[in-house]
């Protein structure tokens, strides 16, 4: 039982990363009918931006220029990095996807792949092949709760992730821009007749998805502090799986599927040798998709979206 709860904690953390990245995939897919295959790499860029911001803020603090408690440095790093990375998303949409909006979908898909490669190799060109170490922004403390070991980092990671997901949910449900996003997912052709600019909503969708990916990147960096330019590829694929499994454009679906992926991976590794982890985990997910081809919350109207 203790063993189970220990793995449950780990699965929650692992699933948080998938869920946060899957949200960006799912929003772009739901609202723009586009697979943004560069999204995994935006997660990577977000982690590196987080690394830069964290290093900068820490350096400033250690110089004595400003006196900041550690938790505030962390909060600042997350907020500033999310803000900066959202512009990477806006740029990707503006330069990569918008010119191809009327082009065949396959062209847009390979655009994503190419942007991904450009981001990876661009990073390589900029920072070189060595891996970088993410600064440890918080002192690690371990709590023993009835035999289950929980670190403050894990609590923070899961907590921040859930907070961001809740904030996104509220934004999409309650705000005027969220309403426009939901409308665009349903029928983008007539949205301009409401006085809404499609370009604005598209840019905003990319910005929000990228900001969430940046948060995932920083949280990942705190848990596993080694970053490399290719860290986003496999992570991106898996989060993409979660997004589709959750159902097109569904925030709840992407979140649940992200956590589910985390759970399946961790619990498969608990029973089988870890070399078999993904082999078995993704066979299970393939099987789930066979029975639910639209994903958990896939909406039947999705097919009639394009005109």
């Amino acid at each position, binding site marked *: 039982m203790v063993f189970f709860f220990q793995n449950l904690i780990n699965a929650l953390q692992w699933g948080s990363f998938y869920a946060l990245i899957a949200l960006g995939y799912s929003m772009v897919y739901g609202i723009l009918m586009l697979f943004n295959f560069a999204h995994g790499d935006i997660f990577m860029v977000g982690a590196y931006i987080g690394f830069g911001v964290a290093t900068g803020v820490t350096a400033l603090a250690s110089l004595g220029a400003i006196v900041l408690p550690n938790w505030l440095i962390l909060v600042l790093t997350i907020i500033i990095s999310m803000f900066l990375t959202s512009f990477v998303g806006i740029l990707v949409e503006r330069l990569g996807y918008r010119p191809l909006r009327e082009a065949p979908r396959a062209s847009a898909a390979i655009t994503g792949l190419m942007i991904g490669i450009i981001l990876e190799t661009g990073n390589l060109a900029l920072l070189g092949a060595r891996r970088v170490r993410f600064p440890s922004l918080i002192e690690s403390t371990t709590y023993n709760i009835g035999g289950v070991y929980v670190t403050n980092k894990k609590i923070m990671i899961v907590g921040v992730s859930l907070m961001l997901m809740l904030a996104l949910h509220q934004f999409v449900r309650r705000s005027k821009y969220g309403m426009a996003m939901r409308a665009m*997912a349903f029928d983008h*052709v007539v949205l301009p007749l*409401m006085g809404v600019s499609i370009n604005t909503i598209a840019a905003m969708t990319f910005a929000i998805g990228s900001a969430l990916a940046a948060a995932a990147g920083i949280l990942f960096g705190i848990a596993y502090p080694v970053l490399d330019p290719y860290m986003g590829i496999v992570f991106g694929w898996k989060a993409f799986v979660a997004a589709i499994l959750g159902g097109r454009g569904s925030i709840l679906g992407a979140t649940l599927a992200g956590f589910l992926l985390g759970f399946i991976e961790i619990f498969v590794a608990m029973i089988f040798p870890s070399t078999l982890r993904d082999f078995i985990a993704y066979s299970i997910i393939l099987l789930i998709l066979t029975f639910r081809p639209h994903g958990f919350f896939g909406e039947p109207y999705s097919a009639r979206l394009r005109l």
Partner: protein
Amino acid sequence: MLLSVENLRVSYDRIRALHNISFSIDEGEIVCIIGANGAGKSTTLRAVSRLVPVEAGTKMTFMGKDLLEYPADKVVSKLGISHVPEGRRLFGNLTIMENLKLACFARNDRDEIQEDLKRIFMIFPRLEERKAQKAGTLSGGEQQMLAIGRAFMSGRKIMLLDEPSMGLAPLLMLSVFDALKELNQEGTTILLVEQNARMALQFAQRGYVLESGNLVLEGSSKELVDNPEVKNAYLGG
């Protein structure tokens, strides 16, 4: 002149849907364009609201401003041209209230928005009763009411209506046209396209006849109703 369209040409995939059509509307008028299915009626409205690209040589002005300088969303928010599209195209995943609020996306005159909402709910009390319901669950008549209400909220200098009678029972159709007449009396100019020529010519003061992408006739509703060709082709003899 409120809206003036000259030499409007539109093509889809190199097939010309509209050949060089010209028409105009004065402030306060109700004007209809009648024509058969596929004549280009919807395309005409879509061209005015800038949802489809027009070909070079087209001139469109609205209150003296060049329409071609405005993207589709600004046509609505800056010029006040609203459009009830073919098939209504409500956002079925949003509630009635959300559909109406979304139409005010670019407006920031809070008090007037409230007034306009009240006005719409007065004309269509059914919408207020169901305001928390998803638009996708409405009946055909209710959908048409919401589509008109939504257009009214988005802009009311002129309303472009694409087949408002479609799919409505006769009685419901009459009440929809009554509501439109009310809005017109309050100052909204109306341009509607209709397959139901009889209804349209009863409602409008003036009309145009569109035939495979060309405007072939124009005149007052009375003239058109009495015209033997119109009678034969559109009014069932």
